[in-house]
């Protein structure tokens, strides 16, 4: 691994977005993910290698630290921001097909439910692990999920709910998805749901935490 790739990876891991960003204090004044991604491309490093050798491993480390309770969410969000800054530079390479993501993940909180903190965390960690994420927001209808799957064939879907009276809507959404697109994989999460419920409604995976979804998705992609 080149020194530059290593530095870029550290910027993402510790949340150094760009040169002007004050966080983290120990990297103040240094180039951030944005500048180092530009530099790497200028030096001829392959865009796919930047993603796979610098950015994704950094976010993997961040996800691991988070799941081991070694960092709080804000540090993880800063890492995601740093990764986002690098992705802005890499965007043309995604558009041209030079960089391939692991796949597309469609996520939303099911209709009737407005909770989004958990969903947002999952979306961020999955994006950080090299997936393209489409976040449909909260109170999302079955039709909206199905329509988005049609526009993104092969996408995997994540459903979130926090209430005992809205978790039942997951069943309707899952059914609609499976009816329209039987091969589409569905993962569920949220405080009231569990593995038994996942099996009962015909979903493919349940995870109690964001890192678990990432691991399941990465197995699917491998």
């Amino acid at each position, binding site marked *: 691994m080149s020194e530059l790739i290593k530095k870029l990876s550290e910027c993402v891991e510790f949340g150094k977005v760009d040169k002007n960003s004050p966080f983290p204090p120990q990297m103040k004044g240094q180039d951030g993910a944005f500048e180092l991604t530009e530099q790497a491309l200028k030096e001829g490093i392959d865009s796919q290698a930047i993603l796979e050798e610098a950015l994704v491993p950094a976010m993997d480390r961040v996800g691991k630290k988070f799941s081991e309770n070694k960092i*709080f*969410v804000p540090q993880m*969000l800063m890492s995601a921001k740093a990764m986002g800054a690098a992705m802005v530079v890499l965007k043309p390479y995604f558009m041209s097909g030079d960089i391939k993501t692991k796949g597309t993940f469609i996520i939303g909180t099911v209709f009737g439910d407005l909770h989004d*903190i958990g969903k947002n965390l999952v979306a961020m960690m999955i994006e950080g692990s090299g997936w393209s994420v489409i976040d449909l927001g909260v109170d999302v209808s079955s039709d909206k999920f199905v329509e988005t799957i049609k526009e993104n064939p092969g996408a995997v879907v994540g459903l979130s709910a926090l209430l005992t*009276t809205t978790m*039942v*809507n997951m069943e309707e959404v899952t059914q609609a998805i499976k009816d329209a697109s039987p091969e589409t994989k569905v993962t569920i999460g949220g405080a*009231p749901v569990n593995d038994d419920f996942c099996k009962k409604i015909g979903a493919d995976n349940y995870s109690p935490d964001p890192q678990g979804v990432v691991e399941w998705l990465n197995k699917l992609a491998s």
Partner: protein
Amino acid sequence: MKYNKLVIDKPEDLMFGIAPNPVKTRRGLEIGGGAVYAELNFTLPTMSINKDTLTRVNQHYKEIAEGALERALHLNSKGVVLEFETLLEMTQTPSIGIELVKIMNEVCEKYYQQHGLASEIRLTPNDLREFERPALQRTSSLLEPMMELFEEGMLAGGDLLSIESTGGKEVSDEALMMCDIKGLMFALAVLGVRDMQFIWKKISALANKHNKIAAGDSACGFANTAMVLAEKKYIPTVFAALVRVISVVRSIVAVEEGAIGPEKDCGYEGPFLKAITGIPISMEGKTAACAHFSPIGNIAFACTDLWSNESVQNIKLLSGMAPTAYLEQLEYDVRLSNEALRMGKTHSQILQQLLVNSDVYTDPQALILAPENVIKISKSLIKGDTYIANAKNGALTALDIIEEAYNSGQLKLSDMETTYLPILRVDLESIPDDESQFVEMMLPMLDQSKFILAEYGL
């Protein structure tokens, strides 16, 4: 802020079951008048609410009320509050919520008439406005069903009116995840305060019109969310403790606009409100573990007037239905406290001391709820001229208390937590007291597509 001196200014006067301004209810409860009562909160088991299930929904609520009151009667309860915190469908279609109030009120009335057991219903509709993003806090058509449920629901027997209003939530969700204390201050002390002034004028006017009780509004979606996130180790507990203190200036607005208590159960800002305004409060602790975990299971009881379980599904346990079982747990807790009150000040103070000492140094969120710290922080919460100044002063005093306890070795904090202490202090000190200056400072840092200033009168 209307309040500039504390109604309770000595820690020893901040006692469970006793509030300077008790609230008397229709069936004879005197909340804060010398006894603690159980406040049972409940919800449906996993099911949909639609026209096909309405009969079953109604049955559930009738069973819950009957099961709870029958058990209360058996346990010689002095009285019970049933909190009917509606599910979305029950506020969206107010007739559903109104019917449920009627059903439960009939049960309450039956037990009162036949057995003399006093009980009341706290009616807590949903704040539907968060369905729209950006939210139309003042002009949304969703205010209509909310207000209809308040008015018709109180006429149907929902005597205590509460809500967990959501003004400022558009900003606070992200601020919580980023540990952005300035963003939280903007959400609670600017947007939250302004929305509370708007919504509580309406609720209090309705309550006065029908001689019902405007009770209170908890910062559930803000400070409780912070507590739950901290419990999951998503954010630092020191940050969550400060969010709680800042939420006081937002929740006190209900009182300024006419609410008289009891403050809602999930508002752990209640002890500060009680010290500042003298209203009775409801709290939840160890008996709310059915709904969420917390680090304040015992200390939460220290100065409460109602003791709640937050929410439990109507599911079968070995002993019976879960709400009935939780009613029993709540009753035994309040029976103990009421016996201490009966035996006199020395005994109630010993019980309070045990409740406080068993939790106080286990978590910063518990630390700030110790009566002597509540009084210290409350003094800071009223010394400024603006809501922002008061919230900032209160948070800085809380931070002083946390640092002092940490430096003395009484409170253990991980390095991950202590890293945030100087950051939070610098951020708090950078906040100007003046609202206009603060708004001007914050706007460039916020995603302005998420909220509409005009909907907050700005």
